[in-house]
């Protein structure tokens, strides 16, 4: 087991796990992601910001629910 790495929210706002209401989630727990892959969106000030994985890994857990509020610097998900 490698060390878990956190993906942090760079801004405050509403976190979304899918790009649109009728679209599938970007990634599921257990999926392999590469650095630069989008794992969700944060909506603030009527802007949508793509949250990306900063390194390669496997999605261990989402700490924030879809449409949950996040603060800047808050952990959104962990990679292993």
């Amino acid at each position, binding site marked *: 087991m490698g060390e878990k790495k956190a993906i942090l929210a760079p801004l405050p706002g509403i976190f979304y796990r899918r790009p649109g209401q009728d679209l599938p989630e970007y990634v599921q727990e257990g999926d392999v992601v590469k650095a630069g892959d989008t794992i969700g969106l944060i909506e603030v000030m009527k802007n949508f910001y793509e949250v990306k994985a900063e390194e390669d890994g496997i999605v261990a857990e989402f700490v924030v629910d879809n449409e949950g509020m996040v*603060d800047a610097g808050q952990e959104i998900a962990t990679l292993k």
Partner: protein
Amino acid sequence: MISVIKPGLQTTVQDKGRIGFYEIGMPPSGAMDKYAFTVANLLVGNHPNAAVLEITYLGPVLQFGKRMRISLAGGQIPPRINGQPVPMWTTLEVREGDELSFDFVQLGARVYLAVEGGIDVPLVMNSRSTYTLIGIGGYEGRALAAGDRLQLADMHEKEVAVGTQIDPRLIPAYSRSHEIRVVMGLCSYRLTDESKQTFLNTEWTVTPEANRTGYRHRGERLQFVEREQPFGAGSNPSNVTDLGYPIGSIQVPDGVEPIVLLHDAVTGGGYATIATVISADLDRMAQIKTNEKVRFVPVTLADALEARREVQARLSQVASAI
């Protein structure tokens, strides 16, 4: 010249604002935190109305095309030059090819980047400020995008030595909960007495709808005094016959979610404005983030004017020490 490698979330060119057109419906735009804006220009020796970059929440990555002095003032979005942390509220020097980037926002919401000479974009109605809602001013009327190239203006007035810092006591303290002073009115008579107290006693939470146009707050529902609506007013009890909206005025459409109107907002309309944020605290509003807590504290007009004089005195102290 400055090249935009990454734009950040919403980075716009701003000066003091497009003053003098409010009565024709043109809001002033301009820097949201005038204190930080003014200090940033002072630290590079610029004319007080030189245009700067207003950076919100998420910083850009910028590359400088020549040696120049720069400064950063405002909320704590920690800056780095070529990856090395550099201080805010300080005169810095960058060389050709240097790259400015930022860490995640810590405290506050907006930081101002002043560059020697100011940012040069065409004047629109006497101002370089960006008003994105109608796409005028600033860089092509919009927030910066990757690949943009900013030209420098000639509004440099004074040599300021690299390493100049302001007195730490003149750096505002930023936090996550905020007491914002208001003068009650113009239409606070429309609220029930109980709801006036609720407005002042509630700890409001800033929603994700908080930007240069206004800040929306979630908390308690407010009730308006029942009446037969006058001619010209809308049918909702939160409506009045149209009036001008002061900058900083607070309206509560349908009694839910008070909105503080800010520098890019509509200049008038038909909602009762129940209180107005005092000018000295508009700078502090600019540094509030989504999810943070706000209490509105009532003061008299005399208190508001005194607070304005205090801010001016602090800026004079900064100016005289540089």
